[in-house]
């Protein structure tokens, strides 16, 4: 099994006629994801090179093709609207890849999506993958392997790094999720830890955090109280200077808080092992 996406995932790509949307629609499709539709207003009725039908609205994609999951590649100024459109159309899982989305837009769009019963992942994230079943994101599918380790991360490429090491050591993944690098995004550590705890096919969890905010500290507390499966952690940004945004809008040590040290100490205090480098994670998770 897996969480959030599997063989039943039917994907609509919002912004499929853009460069990234088109490229990754093809990649996801060749990975085995059921890419059932794309949307670009004004291009309804056409088909992509890969013969995916394009609709003007997400609602049409849901009605005609049974889409239940959406992935968003539209430019940042249009993301708020795209998330709300997907939620309004009855999409249950919305994954937003676009980076640089204004925070108040994310707050409003996420709130709207929740009201419609939809879950949001991202923005500014690499998406998620349930290896061997479905890829909804921009992750390179070839590095993943079917298995039973759940992966949760605030980063994109650092997730790949950890997964690459897990796969090398023969530890496949049930589902791997990049939650996004912005201060405000959708699903986060605690919701996902709970899903992995409840998933019978996940037997261990890798959590990849970074500087900024205190979500790692809260996750540490949650793991101690609620998670019985082994968890291993890596925290990026131990050498980051204060008050500097390290690429991700959310990766900043401000007013002296949000440091890697505080986070590492919180996990260690909760009895969760912390890797010094990504390649140590497989060993920390046990056999």
């Amino acid at each position, binding site marked *: 099994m897996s969480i959030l996406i599997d063989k039943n995932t039917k994907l609509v790509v919002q912004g499929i006629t853009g460069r990234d949307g088109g490229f990754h629609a093809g990649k996801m499709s060749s990975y085995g994801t059921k890419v059932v539709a794309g949307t670009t207003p004004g291009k309804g009725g056409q088909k992509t090179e890969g013969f995916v039908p394009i609709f003007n609205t997400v609602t049409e994609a849901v009605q005609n093709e049974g889409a239940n999951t959406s992935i968003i590649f539209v430019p940042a100024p249009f993301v708020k609207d795209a998330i709300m459109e997907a939620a309004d159309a009855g999409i249950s899982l919305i994954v937003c890849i676009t980076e640089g989305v204004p925070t108040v837009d994310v707050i409003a769009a996420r709130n709207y999506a929740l009201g419609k019963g939809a879950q949001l992942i991202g923005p500014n994230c690499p998406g998620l993958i349930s290896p061997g079943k479905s890829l909804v994101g921009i992750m390179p599918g070839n*590095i993943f392997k079917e298995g039973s380790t759940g992966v949760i*991360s605030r980063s994109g490429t*650092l997730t790949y790094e950890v997964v690459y090491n897990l796969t090398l050591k023969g530890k496949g993944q049930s589902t791997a999720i990049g939650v996004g690098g*912005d201060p405000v995004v959708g699903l986060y550590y605690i919701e996902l830890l709970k899903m992995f705890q409840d998933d019978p096919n996940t037997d261990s969890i890798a959590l990849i955090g*970074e500087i900024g905010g205190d979500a790692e500290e809260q996750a540490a507390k949650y793991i101690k109280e609620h998670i019985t499966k082994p968890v291993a952690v890596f925290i990026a940004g131990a050498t980051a200077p204060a008050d500097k945004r390290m690429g991700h809008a959310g990766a900043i040590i401000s007013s002296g808080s949000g440091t890697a040290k505080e986070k590492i100490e919180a996990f260690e205090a909760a009895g969760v092992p912390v890797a010094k480098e990504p390649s140590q994670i497989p060993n920390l998770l046990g056999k």
Partner: protein
Amino acid sequence: MKIHEYQAKDFFTAYGIPTAKGVVCTDSDSCVAAYMHMKSPVVVIKAQVHTGGRGKAGGVKIAKSSIEVKERADEILGMDIKGFTVDRVMVAEGVDIASEYYISFVVDRNTKSVVLIMSREGGMDIEQVAAETPDKIHRISIDPFVGIPDFLARKAAFMLFDDIALVRQAAPLIQNMYKLFVEKDASLVEINPLVVTNDLKVLAIDGKMNFDDNAIYRHPDLEAMFEPTEEEKKEHDAKSKGFSFVHLGGEIGCMVNGAGLAMATMDMIKLYGGEPANFLDIGGSSNPNKVIEAMKLLLSDKEVRVVLINIFGGITRCDDVARGLIEAFKQFKTEIPIVIRLTGTNEKEGREMLKGTSFHSAQTMSEAIIKAVELSKTDKK
């Protein structure tokens, strides 16, 4: 992005938030002229800099005569506060303060909302109040589609004040602050202290606003207020080319795709005994020109002895990276050793293209970092 107190107060005034009157000056004679026009015999001269702790640093002083105004202004102008040179001061009218309060709106990561934070303990470091006496801090999470209706503004105002006359002033102030926050895409709007004067007026004595960098594109008025430091200028130039760049000062220049991997690369360089020169995330696109620009940026730092390129291909395809690198090094003749690690989407094509070049190639991250640290040391003698 940060702006000055006087700019924040201009926004306050535009949004109907009452503030103590003040004038911005760049020399002490203008300060005296401003003082002469004021009705207030007592004024406060306040340094306008993009950092906190002005008072402690001696950047905020009281003056009671035109001679004192000139003297205090001369003391403050040109002063260095935490690396910022004071080139502007605000001459603010003195206010008879009866009591001080704290009020702010801020983005809260955990509730994923804009939160109103208030305290009757004004004028103090709010983080200290929150740590020592958390029960003295009030927080209200705002529904983005409802905003702050009158009842909620009243409820909030009653948390600060018992007197209905004060609540009637504070409630619209709270609504206007929120309106300002949302309309200008702020990440912080703070009044500390908000005061009640002896004649029972609610007034903002200080004002602070920070803005969401992701939203600057839709606020040309804010863009015009951007006053970068030298370092921020370099970071900003890098950003306009699609990079995130932070200078650190070591010897190993890093070019990485993805912020998390870039941080992990820095951390591991340190772990293996080296010193990273920078944080550089070349982002999630595959434009070969970006790699050329990134190399120019890295090699403009003369401290750099080795360049470590760590690319894990997701959205950025390795063959594009390799093409960019080959192109870049046609233009750059450099003695500096380059360590490259490419993995991910189209990795075979990428590595194939780099065969027969002078780059040090590595497959895993630790392999690449060990090599870069080694080169940064052997190159030194």
